[in-house]
Every structure is written in structure tokens, then in C-alpha cells.
């Protein structure tokens, strides 16, 4: 166990004292498990507690600690009858974690987590569902279930995957390592037998996933795969945006932003994936003009889409 500072030990003791004091001799090993310390560490903390109490620190106003038969008692610490209230950061961490699990599992409506969150939120003066709202990205529950089942059983899955950036759809067999949500999107990481490499797939781009009978050996330590990060060599595009399109700077990872006299913005974006840039420019239409990079993207994409309507 890493060495903990006096402040962290204080935090733990202030929570541990009321818990033990309000019970009639809980078991030492239970206390250790709950508060994350070894028996030796707990004894050291309690020995220190013997010396604590109120002025003038005569035996009658010191906290009384007893350890016997694997059980522990704390008495005469009435001022520590309740733990310290949760700080906003602690309360938020718990509420956000709970809301995230609810959002990500589709389970437990009215179950223990749901009930616990409502009680916790009420104690903080808020409503669990209203104060903190978590959206992890919409994906089908059965997809997550299939992927989790495959990970749990170390079985391969065949996914029908649409690559958004390349605008291309293909079937791939993968050895799934993990399903997780990051940055508001669900991902499955794993070995892709089509690419013969480790890959990260967005779950919302998987049309279907079929659990295969074939198994695989999961790696001891699955690699940490980063989601897309722009590289120095990726092409850039510079756009002049009208005032009504200033939101682009809010919603896309822009590298540079400069104000224009018109009230608009000049922004530079990384555009390594053609389909992604086409979508942005088609949507913006006359509200954006390309002033740096491939200026023909918009018109050629527009002609391709038009062919469908004129065909």
C-alpha cells in the first residue's frame, strides 16, 4: 500500500470513527476491508486515537479505544458521531459515476443503484436525475450485451462495421478486449483480423455483431488505445465562417480561431478524413468558404449527392 499523507489518514479516520463508534464492536477485518487498510495500519491509527480527545486531555475526556477478540470499540467521541458531509467534488463523483452506469447498462431502473442515487442526491439537496445528466452516446443495448458476453467468454465476434471517416462498410472478425465509453462515445477495442492489428471501433458504427463459436486468448494486459488524434502530417483546411456558423468553433476541434471583421471566424481544422470534411462543408453550405486547402471538396461532393436525386 502506498504511503498516505497525514491529510488522507485524517480523512479516513474521521469517517472510520463514527462508523465504529455507532456499532457494538465490529470485526477488525471488516473495518479494514471497508476503509482500505491493513490490520497493522488500523492498529497504528487507533493507537494514535488513544491520545486524542478534549482539553485538558485527562483520561476522562480522551477517546476510548478497545481492541479485543478481533473486534474494536470506540467510545467517548460524541463530537464525531457523524462523518463529515460530502464535498461537492465527492458528491459529484459518486452521482456522475452512478448516472453513468445507469446510462451505460440500461439496467437497474428502480434497483439498488437507482435507489441509492436518489437517496444520496436528496441528502445533497438535489434530484439525482435532474442535477446531473449523463449521455454516453446512443447505442443499441443488445450490441453492448453481445460484445460484453463475447469479452466475458473470450469469444470472437463478427461485426459489420461502417468506417465513418472513409465512408466504407465491411465485415470484420475481431477478438474483443474491452467495451468502454470515452468522450461521450462507446468503443470496443480488440484485435481486428482484417487489419491484422489492434483497433478501436465505435460501437454506434457497428450495424450487427454476431457471437462466434471460436475463442481467443485475451492478452494479459490489453493495450490502451487512444481514439483518433490528429497527426502533424494530416491535411488542414481553413474556412471562413459567417457569424451564423460560429458554432463550428465550439463543436469541432479547431486548431486556430481568428475573428473576422464580418463578425464571422476564420478557423483551421484537421481534415484527415475526406468524408468527415464533406459532411461538414455540405451542412454549412453558403455559410462557409474554403480559403485554405482543397477548395473543390464541396462542389464535387454536392454533385455526387445530386446524382442520386437526378438518377
Amino acid at each position, binding site marked *: 500500500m502506498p504511503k498516505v499523507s497525514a491529510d488522507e489518514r485524517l480523512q479516513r479516520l474521521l469517517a472510520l470513527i463514527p462508523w465504529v463508534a455507532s456499532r457494538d464492536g465490529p470485526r477488525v477485518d471488516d473495518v479494514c476491508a471497508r476503509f482500505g487498510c491493513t490490520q497493522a495500519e488500523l492498529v497504528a491509527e487507533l493507537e494514535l486515537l488513544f491520545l486524542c480527545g478534549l482539553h485538558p486531555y485527562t483520561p476522562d475526556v480522551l477517546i476510548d479505544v478497545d481492541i479485543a477478540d478481533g473486534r474494536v470499540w470506540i467510545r467517548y467521541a460524541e463530537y464525531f458521531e457523524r462523518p463529515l458531509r460530502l464535498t461537492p467534488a465527492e458528491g459529484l463523483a459518486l452521482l456522475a459515476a452512478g448516472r453513468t452506469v445507469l446510462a451505460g447498462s440500461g439496467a437497474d431502473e428502480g434497483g439498488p443503484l437507482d435507489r441509492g442515487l436518489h437517496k444520496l442526491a436528496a441528502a445533497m439537496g438535489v434530484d439525482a436525475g435532474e*442535477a*446531473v445528466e449523463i449521455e454516453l452516446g446512443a447505442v443499441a443495448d443488445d450490441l453492448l450485451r453481445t460484445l460484453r458476453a463475447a469479452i466475458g467468454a473470450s469469444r470472437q465476434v463478427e461485426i459489420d462495421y461502417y468506417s465513418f471517416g472513409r465512408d466504407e462498410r465491411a465485415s470484420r472478425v475481431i477478438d474483443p478486449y474491452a467495451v468502454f*465509453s470515452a468522450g461521450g462515445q462507446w468503443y470496443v477495442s480488440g484485435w481486428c483480423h482484417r487489419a491484422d492489428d489492434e483497433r478501436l471501433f465505435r460501437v454506434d458504427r457497428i450495424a450487427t455483431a454476431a457471437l462466434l463459436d471460436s475463442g481467443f486468448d485475451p492478452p494479459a494486459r490489453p493495450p490502451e488505445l487512444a481514439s483518433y488524434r490528429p497527426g502533424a502530417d494530416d491535411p488542414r483546411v481553413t474556412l471562413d465562417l459567417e457569424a451564423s456558423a460560429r458554432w463550428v468553433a465550439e463543436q469541432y476541434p479547431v486548431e486556430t480561431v481568428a475573428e473576422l471583421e464580418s463578425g464571422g471566424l476564420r478557423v483551421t481544422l484537421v481534415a484527415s478524413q475526406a468524408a468527415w470534411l464533406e459532411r461538414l462543408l455540405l451542412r454549412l453550405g453558403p455559410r462557409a468558404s474554403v480559403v485554405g486547402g482543397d477548395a473543390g471538396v464541396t462542389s464535387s461532393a454536392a454533385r455526387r449527392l445530386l446524382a442520386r436525386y437526378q438518377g
Partner: protein
Amino acid sequence: MAGPAPSIGRVHRLERLINLVAALLHAERPLTADELRHRLPGYAADHATFRRAFERDKEALRDLGIPVVVEPVDDAAQPSAMGYRIPKEAYYLKDPGLAPDELAALHLAASAVRLEGASGVEALWKLGGELAEEGPSGPLSGFSSPSTLAGPAGTAMAALPGTANLAPVFAAISARRRIGFTYRGRARRVDPWRLSFRNGHWYLAGFDHDAGEERMFRLDRVESEVLATGDDAAFERPPHAGTQPPPWELGADEALTARLRVDAGQAAWAAGHVGPEAVESWDEDGSVVLAVRVTNRDAFRSFVLGFLDHAEVLSPAVLRGEMVEWLEALAEAPCLR
């Protein structure tokens, strides 16, 4: 076991901090710094040395969220003296009354989700400690063990980014205090209602007093510290509308039902996105026809364009015509070099 241990300089800092909290919690009236120096073992007799140690201790307590307040002592013998106290009502946790299975579920959630810059462990200690793995009837229905909730190498099932102002904003939401901050170069006064995490970012929804209406602020774009001002319970939170309708239903355009064909490759995603009730038919080639209510045509056009050439507005003629017009204007646009 041991008796009093007043030997100065030999007292463990942790012991001194516990005694300090006990003294301030127990105090009937605010205690002056001088009184604390005399009463607590472990503080130096030398004034400057004591002052340094006392300031550091006070900071340590406040960093843990312990409400150390400064008040007039209100004692005839020491008029105008200021003293320190920890108000019990501000210190004590209001017991949420969690049942063991509820605490276990919260514990599991805290270990499955990582909120950057915050930890749920201290909160769990206060709520009764971390529970050991429970038996077969796991606290989260649908999950047999935390490992199925976990991501790579035992990391979290979900990682939420943190931002600097998250905790103060949440504090103001729970206390219902007005906050002030700078956003897009302008000072704002806002009644904070709710935090939302969507599209990978934290947003604050609240009433912007300068705009006179509800606004959403992206927290990582806040350009200043967030400062709470005024009293607690300064406003009422309006009930939350719940799930947001899709953007193409957020508008005042004449309501139309648009029929949209989406090709096989993206049909499942599209159907999942608009909901099953909007699916009109599935074709043999795997494509789907969706019937979508539209009251915001710009937003609908953006949605359709996201499919590039894998989708087509079928009807009504007015919407199809608008799409063709939009594309024609872009197809003919001069190349800007």
C-alpha cells in the same frame, strides 16, 4: 492506555489535527487562536511558529471540506476578539440512509467510472466504507461482476473528462446559489440548474440573467473562475423537460412528415437514431424508409447530409426540392483558391 501527551514538538501532526477538529466541533463558542495554542498539545509556544503551523492546519482542514468558520467570540472579557469554530450542522453528513445493497451498487459504480480529477473513495468511506465483493446476487442486475463493467486492463467502463469548474458549479447547483463567470468574453450571472454530459463535454444549463432566458454553457469554455454570490436557495429549479427531442423537431417551421430512404450500410444506425416508431418499412436490399416529423428544416437537412450519398429524401416534394436546390447551389459554387 496512554495519558495526556502535551510534550511540545513530539506530537504527531495527525493527532494534532484530530484534536483540533474535536476542539472546534465541541466548542460552545468560537475559540481564539490563543486559546487553541494553549489547549492543544503540539503547538509551539513561540507565537510566529505557532501561527505558521495553525494556518497550515486550518488550510488542511478546509481542503478536506471541513467548514472552519471565523466569528466574533462575543465574550465580555475579550471584546472584538475573533475565534474559530466548526458548526456541527455544516460538518455532519446528513445520513442518506443507504441500504447495504445500495451502498454496494454505488461502490461498484464508483469503481467502474472514472471522473477525471475526482475520486469516489473518500465519499464511500463517509457513507460506510467500501464493501467487499458481494456474493452471487450482485448489486447491479445484469452484471455478474465488476469485471464486465470494466474497460482495458481493469480500467473504467467509462471515463468522463473533468474540467476546472465542475465542483464549484455542482456546489452552486445543490445550494441553489447564483454564480458569475466570464463566457465568450462577457460576464454572466446565472442561476445554475443542471450539469449535462453529452457529446463528450460537460454543459451547464441555467437561467442567464443578462440574456433573460435559459442557456447552455460548455464548462471547458468558461474563461474565468466560477464564483457563487448571494444566498442559498436563491431560485427554484424548473422541472426538467427530460429527453430532448431531436434537433429537427426543435423549430417553428410548418410541421411536415418527411420520408427518407437510408441505404443498407447505415440503415440500422439511422433506425436506431430516430427510434423504431419512425420506421416505415424495411426493403429487401436492406435499406430502410423512415417517416420523420420535421419542424426545423435546416436541422433535418443537416441530418440527411450526414449520410452523404447513402440517403435520399423521398417526399414531400417541397423538402425534396429544397434539398436539390441546396445541393445545386453548392455544386455550382465557384472554386475559391
